[in-house]
């Protein structure tokens, strides 16, 4: 069975960046997804962050292509923000930045502790295993 991991918007960006400039950790992640050793979960909220950036950069068509590729990819699940995540958020007594909390709870939804991101809050607040580059 393949390992399940969650990724943030930065990782999504690097999935379609100049291969030579992709940090080695993310290059390895991409290769493992292609081989089927890793199943990657993309939270829709992370997609919206990337859309925000790409719209500003005037790269809507490139973004559309990227989205179509994630949708067509094996070993890639686009997770829709739903009540399951809200119910997991109910277990948190303190308020956190919503975007971080939703992504962290996406990990819980898929019963994985592994998050690919540079955001230290995932480790410090949500006690996730942060794979940073």
């Amino acid at each position, binding site marked *: 069975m393949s390992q399940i991991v969650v990724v943030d918007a930065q990782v999504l*960006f690097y999935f379609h960046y*100049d291969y030579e400039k992709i940090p080695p950790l993310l290059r390895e992640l991409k290769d493992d997804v292609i081989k089927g050793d890793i199943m990657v979960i993309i939270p829709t909220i992370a997609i919206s962050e990337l859309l*925000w950036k790409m719209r500003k950069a005037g790269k809507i068509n490139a973004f559309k292509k990227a989205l*179509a*590729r*994630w949708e067509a990819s094996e070993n890639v699940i686009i997770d829709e923000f739903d009540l399951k995540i809200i119910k997991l958020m109910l277990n948190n007594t303190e308020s956190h*930045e919503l*975007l971080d909390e939703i992504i962290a709870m996406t990990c819980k939804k898929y019963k994985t502790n592994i998050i690919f991101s540079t955001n230290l809050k995932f480790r410090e607040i949500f006690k996730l295993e942060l794979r940073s580059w």
Partner: protein
Amino acid sequence: MTIECEMFMTEKITQKVSSNGRIVIPKEWRDKLAIKDKNEIEMELKEDKTILIKKKIHPLEINDNLFEGVSPFTEDELKEAKKSLFPSE
């Protein structure tokens, strides 16, 4: 003027099909096409009774630098995107 071109010759082999219909793609061919363990292949039965076998390309394998000209996220951009999603935070 010298023109260099790489010729790709058609290669042929003959193989026996096993009782459950399995055939083996020769290692040399697998290496040439970078077909690795667990990779998927597509098979197409053609009208002329030939079978076309192709390595299935995973969409993430397409390294066409889709986001060319755009820099990776900066810390400020990530903060700005967050604010855009949840302005009151």
